[in-house]
């Protein structure tokens, strides 16, 4: 979902250091209500997950609408096997897409962000705005000429084209994240390096890069998720179903109303596992990176 819908990463959320608030008596009942409301919303948010998980483990016979919400009588991984059979080549495609694209666009973002914030040139802010606008365009508008250009240039078909597209259209957001982060580095650090006779690349390599880890984490996670979840680019750029990344294949599998629900759900879950895993495992590093300044509002 985060794919081509350009959403700047959420800002860092400072912790609440002092608990303050109304009168004592109101506090307790107010607090109960608060937790109840929070729990209610949590249930709402997680409800689709429940459905996904529960249905994916059901037998075909149980995917009858009348049993829609019930716990499976029999837990089976049949749907998972099916999903795997159908989608594993596409999963592989997705990995072949996401890994190079993330690495390249992250590095590119770091270099761009560095120059735009710390080794500026006249008009650097204009260039940055010029980049930023590119993040908001409707990508539909450029898909046709893009595919045309690919054909004319004889660019290798399939995943390489998609990698290229994501790298290019990822330039704005990656530059944004790194630029915000590098802005928190004091300028006199750059000046000290200059006085020590370091040139631009040397300064980047020896002074800036070693302290860039938080921004790299935020950018990499963001790009990984966006690119993995992308549908628009893939559906326009890749014509051969064998080369589809998993999102397109998923849509194809589940689009037909004939597909049984357990397969649909297991396929959707399977396709989402990598990004969910990244979210669960690396989420705190993402937050930590944001707190370190990888995006200031």
């Amino acid at each position: 979902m985060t794919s081509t819908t350009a959403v700047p990463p959420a800002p860092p959320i400072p912790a609440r250091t002092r608990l303050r608030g109304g009168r004592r008596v109101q506090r307790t009942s107010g607090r109960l209500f608060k937790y109840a409301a929070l729990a209610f919303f949590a249930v709402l948010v997680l409800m689709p997950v429940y459905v996904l998980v529960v249905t994916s483990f059901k037998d075909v016979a149980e995917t009858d609408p009348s049993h829609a919400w019930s716990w499976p009588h029999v837990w089976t991984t049949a749907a998972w096997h099916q999903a795997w059979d159908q989608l594993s080549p596409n999963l592989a495609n997705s990995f072949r897409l996401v890994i190079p694209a993330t690495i390249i666009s992250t590095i590119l973002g770091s270099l761009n962000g560095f120059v735009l914030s710390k080794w500026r040139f006249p008009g650097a802010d204009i260039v940055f705005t010029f980049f930023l606008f590119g993040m908001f365009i409707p990508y539909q508008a450029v898909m046709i000429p893009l595919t045309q250009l690919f054909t004319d240039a004889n660019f290798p078909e399939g995943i390489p084209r998609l990698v290229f597209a994501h790298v290019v259209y990822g330039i704005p957001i990656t530059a944004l994240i790194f630029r915000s982060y590098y802005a928190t580095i004091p300028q006199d650090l750059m000046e000290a390096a200059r006085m020590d006779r370091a040139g631009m690349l040397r300064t980047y390599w020896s002074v800036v890069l070693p302290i860039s880890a938080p921004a790299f984490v935020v950018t990499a996670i963001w790009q990984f998720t966006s690119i993995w979840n992308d549908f628009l680019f893939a559906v326009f750029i890749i014509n051969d179903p064998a080369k589809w990344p998993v999102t397109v294949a998923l849509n194809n599998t589940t689009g037909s109303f004939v597909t049984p629900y357990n397969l649909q759900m297991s396929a959707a879950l399977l396709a989402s596992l990598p990004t969910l895993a990244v979210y669960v495992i690396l989420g705190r590093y993402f937050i930590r990176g944001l707190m370190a300044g990888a995006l200031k509002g």
Partner: protein
Amino acid sequence: MRNIRRWGPGLLLVSPSIVLVAVFVYGLIGWNVRVSLSDWRTAVQSSKWAGFAAYRDLNADLAWSENVHHLLGFTVTFIVGALLIGLTLAFLLEKGVRGEGFFRSVYLFPMAISFIAAGVVWRWLMNPAPGDRSTGLNVVFEKLHVGFLANQWYLGLDWGMSAMAMPAIWALSGYVMALYLAGFRGVPEELREAARMDGASEWRVYRHVVFPHLRPVTLSALIILGHISIKVFDLIVAIGGKQLVTQTPAVYMWILIYDARDYAKGAAIATLLLVGISLLIIPYLIYTVRSEQRV
């Protein structure tokens, strides 16, 4: 700034990106606009100038006006819903609760899921089948004795697109919450304390001290959500496919180009989308970059 030796290398390092963006963003947009003004209406490419013919055809196209209505319905529900829920969640969390981290992670996790996968679930949840064959949310309503709430969801003629906004709200409320939470926490505690000392009730503190601080956040959220809404494609396709009853301009464009091969008309839609977004984004960009310079 005479010392090009100093800033030259920087410009050099960024120049490949500048070229790429210039070509693949601005160049292609220009190409797109040109196509919209040509008479390339079939699979046979043509670059003859046709003026605004494609736009006129679009205007006369009944499907187009439906699309626009759908988009409006979707946008309004989506934005209002996401803002309200995001604000509510942030409001609940902002004073600090036990397990804040847990709740935040829960509300934010939909951002990790692709719209396609979300579409699979929500299509099922919003299954329009009524009564005995009802499933998804409809059956929940029946069980909770609020059966009258059961409806046709995204297939409904009047509120269809509003229903379509629900998965979008589900996906993005967490993000809006994060924006508002940062906004709430950006209010200096001293301001609230001073207001309390001056005798304000807690509600008054919110109304006069905190909420004004949130106006810029609401503005940002509005603009970001607005532009997402105009562009949204994955979700519509995942839930409604190519059906007219859920079609939006973004989807229609895809259909025109891939199925009907009417390139000029498709490009016209794309150009209009771009104009719509620019009206939102350009003032916003100018505003943010300028306020950054002030700081």
